[in-house]
């Protein structure tokens, strides 16, 4: 008997056709559990970013050794369960060359684009996630999903370049509705059928194609460039709609949860730590049900104003105002905030790792880059910005290592990520951030 993941049990009862879907079975996969047996397509690799502000505390996070079995450190304690599924990247440098060192921006923007920005809150090019989404998003409903756990609508670090950023979902309910609200059909539903509204939208876009082409031929170069950017968005919309007209290729065993309840979403630490796992769970299910293959989550912004209720120091202010306790060798209040940021990251990894998919987990089939804006926020240092690269990228990345960059450019991380995501790319970044050296220690 030939089974596919869309196989339905059928039968007649009381003169009516009865159908019943099957749970996700190993037999839907190939012998190794690495590809869909019916189509031979490999399990897709998903990509995500996790951003947090104000770096980490070197005295509390930096392991003394590199390579495998590196020391556990206090600030990374929450990540310990995932130590074997992630790499800790330290000692990479964001070069600014002749551009100004824009505090709380140059570092993360250089990591995201391979280019040092010239202006505050501007990206000197497309961010890594957008490049990747452009290649892997086909077939999913959304090119990417952005999430700001603090509820801050300006907190998105996903961009096609310049000052524009992709607007984030700022509440669990908002994210739920985006992923599973109007227009969503559970791929595992037996009676899945294309939404007539979507069909209508697609047909509307199709009929203007001829006019679009005429318009492009009749305008000048500048307008042509603007229209091209606009139509790119339209084409992405078309692709998204097309994806909605066919049943998503869901390969994980997940259930669509009920809508989350209303909750306070703000920068207070208890709320951040409550909201982030919920957002992470929704994102993970969104990935598993192929609503998107790329996500960007921000736990807190650069120069974060995350705060502990009742405490007069917000995070960023603490980084500057709190004296270093010379006996301890670090700033105690500041370092606690960094610990919360790692707890947020741990909750994302837990959700990704909690979903079984074939031979592994969603985390094994994903690649998540967690990064920040500074190394030592007190100094706005951008040399040695800590990063975490989690997930195996479907067997493309070796994990469990601490890699020290030795002052080489942060672009090596972006280049490695893109190569792991299947890009045939020799070099990435510009000026001193240009590199043709992926992180060979973790590349398989």
């Amino acid at each position: 008997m030939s089974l596919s993941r869309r196989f339905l049990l059928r039968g007649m009862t009381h003169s009516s056709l009865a159908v019943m879907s099957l749970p996700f079975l190993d037999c839907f996969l190939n012998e190794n559990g690495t590809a869909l047996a019916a189509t031979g397509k490999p399990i897709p690799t998903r990509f995500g970013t996790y951003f947090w502000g104000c770096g980490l505390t070197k005295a509390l996070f930096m392991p003394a050794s590199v390579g495998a079995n590196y020391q556990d450190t206090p600030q990374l304690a929450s990540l310990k369960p995932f130590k074997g599924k992630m790499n800790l990247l330290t000692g990479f440098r964001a070069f600014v060359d002749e551009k100004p060192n824009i505090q709380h921006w140059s570092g993360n923007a250089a990591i995201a684009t391979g280019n040092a920005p010239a202006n505050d809150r501007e990206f000197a090019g497309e961010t890594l996630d957008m490049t990747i989404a452009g290649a892997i998003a086909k077939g999913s409903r959304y090119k990417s999903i952005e999430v700001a756990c603090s509820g801050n609508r300006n907190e998105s670090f996903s961009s096609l370049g310049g000052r524009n950023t992709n607007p984030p979902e700022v509440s669990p309910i908002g994210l739920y509705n985006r992923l599973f609200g109007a227009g969503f059909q559970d791929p595992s539903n037996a009676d899945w059928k294309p939404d007539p509204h979507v069909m209508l939208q697609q047909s509307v876009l199709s009929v203007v194609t001829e006019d679009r082409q005429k318009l492009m031929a009749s305008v000048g170069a500048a307008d042509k460039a603007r229209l091209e950017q606009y139509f790119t968005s339209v084409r992405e919309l078309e692709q998204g709609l097309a994806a909605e007209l066919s049943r998503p290729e869901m390969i994980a065993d997940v259930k669509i949860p009920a809508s989350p309840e209303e909750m306070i979403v703000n920068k207070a630490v208890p709320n951040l730590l409550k909201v982030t796992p919920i957002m992470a769970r929704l994102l993970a299910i969104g990935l598993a049900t192929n609503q998107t293959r790329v996500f960007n989550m921000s736990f807190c912004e650069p120069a974060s104003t995350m705060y502990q209720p009742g405490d007069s120091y917000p995070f960023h202010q603490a980084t500057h105002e709190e004296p270093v306790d010379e006996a301890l060798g670090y700033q105690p209040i500041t370092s606690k905030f960094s610990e919360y940021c790692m707890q947020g990251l741990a909750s994302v990894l837990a959700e990704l790792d909690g979903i079984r998919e074939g031979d592994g987990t969603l985390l094994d089939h994903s690649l998540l880059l967690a990064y920040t804006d500074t190394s030592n926020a007190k100094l706005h240092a951008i040399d040695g910005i800590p990063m975490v690269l989690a997930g195996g990228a479907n067997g493309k990345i070796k994990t469990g290592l601490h890699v020290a960059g030795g002052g080489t450019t942060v672009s090596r991380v972006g280049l490695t990520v893109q190569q792991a995501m299947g890009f045939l790319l020799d070099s990435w970044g510009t000026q001193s951030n240009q590199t043709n050296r992926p992180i060979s220690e973790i590349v398989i």
Partner: protein
Amino acid sequence: MRIIFVSVGLIGLAFATTPASAVPWVRGYVVDAYEPAFYFGGKLSQDDLGTDCPKGAVPDNDYAKILKTSWRSDAEVKKLMTPVEGREPGGIMAPGLSYRGFRPDIETYINPFAAPDPGFQQVTGKIAEGFNLDNNPRTGFSGTKGEAGIDNNFYRVMGCTLTYRGAPWKGYLSERSTDKMVDGHYTMVIRVSGNQDPMNDADVVVEVGYSPDQMVKDPMGKVTPDYSYRLAKSAQFTKLKARIRGGVIETEQKDIRMPEFSWAESNRGEALFQKGKMRLTMNNDGTLLGMAGGYRDWREIYGRDTFNIPSGGPTRETFYHQNQIGMFYALRRNADGIPDATTGQNTGISTAYRIRALPAFVVDPRQPVVIDQQAGERPYQERDAFMRALTTRTLQAPPPSGSGGGGYYRSTTPAPAPVPGQASKSTGATAVR
């Protein structure tokens, strides 16, 4: 035995006058740490009590007190101090902190004289680092080795502030500035050349200035010695005569133009040390350690500290506990040199800065190189307005809103409405009353 002693003496004399010591020599250095020379009387931490500052570092401001004016009600003060979720106090209070003069429409970072002097917690210790700039042993501090007449009133004013205070190379702004410098913010080089023994030479030239070349760092993030750097003979370049005794270089006293101690793009630029001096020691390990000092225009020091992106006045006051109005008056009060030809008021305040440098090859560029200096953005406009206010004795309006940078807490909201019956100066200048 006597004959032998005589022989040894003759040999020693022969070495002292050997022709080999007359060979021209050059040593180059790249500066890898640069900070105000503020003697630290505490033990470890910047907020320790110490001989320099018996009360420790300057505590946080009493905002209820400094926001209160004759025209601002207690309720308005309370509102300005009410925390807003997700915002820093500096941002919330910026509109209030920027306007605390005798009239509600006066921007008081630009016109600080329009607000009363709140006082400033200064250094009360007797020891300082620096130079005897006025050649008067009866004025100033005692040096760390008991020297008399050390002039460093910049230290006297700012030495207890949270961001400047600390053990050598450990002060907050010191670490921040040095981190930026070695990461490419700017490069400072020094070239020392002579004609005799490098350790004892009476005919020495010291050149100091910017280099357009960024420093090279090793995998551990330290600056790598022995790289080549071009010396930009731009406006921030100075050539000084000097002499060396036992490896210690002492320059002539002369105006020195060299790079500014800077932690952000908008306070980078030239530092002019009037009647300046440098004292630098060439260490056996090849490094150079010492100081540059001189009288600096206290108004420029106030301007760069108060008007910069991203840590302008409200940030200086709320993050770093400085009272900028108090700082203005304290700098003016402690100005101790360079009297204005017309008013006789001192425009200079004695300063000293520590310098640490690594061996490098400092070379002349084939083509003249220019070090860019930003201008035109809001901090520069504000500094200009402040200087106009002081020199013309007229109140100046702040530059238009929106010319600041990200994270720059300034009064971007319109100025409060003028009190009825009093003249508005929403455009242009108004005479000080």
